[in-house]
């Protein structure tokens, strides 16, 4: 219902032109996710989920198209609400139509295009995005994306040779884009942290935060 979505915007997001992001990502995506735009996150991974988590936690519905491998538990740990997720693992060759249909209902659509989108497809989806005011998070390349995030470096903590286990990953995320997001930035994040959540990591810190309790 149109009324409800307006209400939502006012409630959860003072700036109705943007969807909120997790606090840890605020420096990389200043102001949040701009409605009607595309965010590219490189190859599929937790970063895509982290980008969507803030808005999902704030109440937005999130659809994942072409991602049969999406780890729902990881998504929930990162902050997405599984109760407001739609999964379309296999959209087939009609994925642009599927994405466009979903954008009518969901404010966030994660997509991993099964093929390289043509310029025509990109233009059509961009028009749909502007009309619906949603945000498309693309795992993969997308010419003309408003913002682009990439994992530049990563290191795992907690695991040794034959002992320990994976506990947390410290990644350096590089961001660039167009317009307001044009300035290239980089930030260290726990992606995931020891409890699966996403948090900012101090650049100097080498050891993981206190992770013993989580064993």
């Amino acid at each position, binding site marked *: *219902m149109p009324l*409800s*979505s307006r*209400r*939502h915007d006012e*409630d959860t997001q003072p700036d109705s032109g943007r969807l909120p992001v997790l606090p840890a990502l605020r420096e990389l995506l200043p102001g949040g996710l701009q409605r009607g735009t595309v965010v590219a996150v490189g*190859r*599929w*991974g*937790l970063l895509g989920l982290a980008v969507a988590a803030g808005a999902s936690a704030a*109440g*937005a*519905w999130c*659809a994942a198209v072409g991602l*049969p*491998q*999406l*780890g*729902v*538990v*990881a*998504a929930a*740990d990162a902050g997405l609400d*599984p*109760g*407001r*997720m*739609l*999964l*379309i*693992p*296999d*959209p*087939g*060759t*009609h994925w642009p*139509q*599927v994405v466009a*249909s*979903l*954008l*009518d*209902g*969901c404010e966030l659509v994660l997509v991993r295009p099964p093929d390289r989108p043509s310029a025509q497809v990109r233009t059509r989806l961009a028009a749909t995005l502007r009309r619906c005011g949603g945000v498309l998070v693309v795992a993969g390349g997308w010419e003309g994306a408003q913002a682009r995030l990439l*994992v530049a*470096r990563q290191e*795992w903590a907690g*695991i*040794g*040779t*034959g002992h320990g*286990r*994976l*506990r*947390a*990953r410290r990644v350096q995320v590089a961001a660039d884009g167009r317009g307001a997001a044009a300035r290239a930035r980089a930030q260290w994040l726990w992606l995931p942290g*020891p*409890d*699966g959540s996403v948090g900012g990591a101090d650049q100097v810190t080498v050891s993981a935060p206190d992770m013993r309790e*989580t064993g």
Partner: protein
Amino acid sequence: MRIAGDRPERVLVVWCPGWPAAGPEAGTAGDGAARGAGGGGVARGDAVPDAGHRAADFGRVVSVVEGFCPRVEMLRPGACAVGVRGPARYFGGEAALAAKIITAVAGAGFASQVGIADGLFAACLAAERARPVPGARPVPGARPVSSARPTAVRPGAVMTVAPGRTRAFLAPLPVGALGSPELTDLLPRLGIRTLGEFAALPAAEVANRFGTAGVIAYRLAHGLPPRPLAPRPPPADLSVSQEFDPPERQAEPVVFAAKALAERMHNGLAANGLACVRVQVQAVWEDGRESTRLWRHDGLLSALAVADRVRWQLADTPPPAHSPPPHPIAVKIPAPMGAKKRTTDGYPPGGRDEARSGDEGDEEVWGGGVRMLRLVPDQLVRDQGWQLGLWGDAVASDRVARAAIRVQAMLGHDAVTRPVLGGGRGPAEQVTLVPFGSVDDRMPSPGRPDTPGGPDRAGGRGGPGRPDRAGELGGPERGGLDDLGQPWPGRIPAPSPATIYPAPLPASVTDDSGATVTVSGRGVVSAPPAQMSADGAPWLVVTAWAGPWPVAERWWDPRTARRRARFQLVTEDGAAWLVAVQNGRWLIEARYD
């Protein structure tokens, strides 16, 4: 006999003094009880057996009374009631009927008293206040007094309250007769000692002060039944159906008829101010096959959307077992626009596929035509409109539902799913995908983790997932989270991988010498893993690893039993993997990325 307006039916209560009324203290509750039992001159210790025995004995009294009127309501051991109107006519009046009953009950060996009044409450009180008959002295449990004097009972043990005099009869009685401890305690302290004084209060004030219980007592004090009758109108049959004669062999007309049927069903529901939570679609083929499925509706679906569900259901219906060859007049179901060939889970790969016409992937063939289509609204609720909309309601909003339904129309019902988290050991087992908008009752029931063996032989689940109230649009998805808090021995520890391969990728893991790393039955690794290749990709040096974590799952079921040992590997490119070795083969289950 006048049965007027609100006046209750004339009731006759047969009361045999001496039975415990309703509880341990009940023997002292009625003074009549003491009179009846004590007056017999029998020691009470002997005359009062346990209540169970007496309850059984009272059956004999009831069967005697049933000789007069077949519909006897047993109130409690010691008291039963009959409607008096019919039998009184037959036996020559209320008094004559009462006398006959008392005589007959005495013949069975029990003293009894009879009260006749308007309504059960007054009749009970009347029976308790009837004078006992001096001649009728048998007590419960005793044998008949004397077969020589069966007619010694005179009808003095009857109290008849004339029709319309019930209120006057009740007026002088103490409020304790209401049988409500609260009121019995409270009313005298307010200066209200008799039922008459209570009945004189304004009704609204009684309702205000004493609530529902007070209103019931107030009506009783007025000689009215405890509450006005609230007969429920028989639920209207809101199901709609259409017969096809001759059976319809084309799908389109059936779907078209379904749309009209759905409109009729919606109109019928709307006329009654109702909405249905689910709609049952039932299709019957001419060969007797039947397909019944429940679809979530929630008052959200348009007639067209219901018709879409009918289409999906028809398309999903398996062919008859004998799988007839494609027939020139077989029904062709064109798949919805844009659909691609999908293999629906759960059907044998034969049948439908071989019956599918070769040139177009968009047509499917059944044998036989549809004879009848019925839509039954299920779980009717008052239609309160769908005021949805605060995001955060765990109910799929209208907008989302419409988008999902549109995608389902393109790709098929199973293509749009919602995740339900549940308990599980491996990453893939913790999530169940439920088609959007469906209520799937075929899912296995949730299984609790049980650990019949040692720590490495943790129990598993019987089925693929836990459908915790699956399919409900309203807030079920987090219901399964309860299970996440439960311990799952052998569970992969957090954090969870973001990429879980639906089908594990084959992999190779070797040690320094290039030999495949193996894990013995005792969980010993042959050598530290040194390099890994995923699905034919270039070799990557393993920089860190942990494991093995052996799990033996479902070892009690030879068909699904599996033993695998899991590892976490970090490769030189910084990627982390969840790999497992099973039967000497390495598999990549998930990737942490």
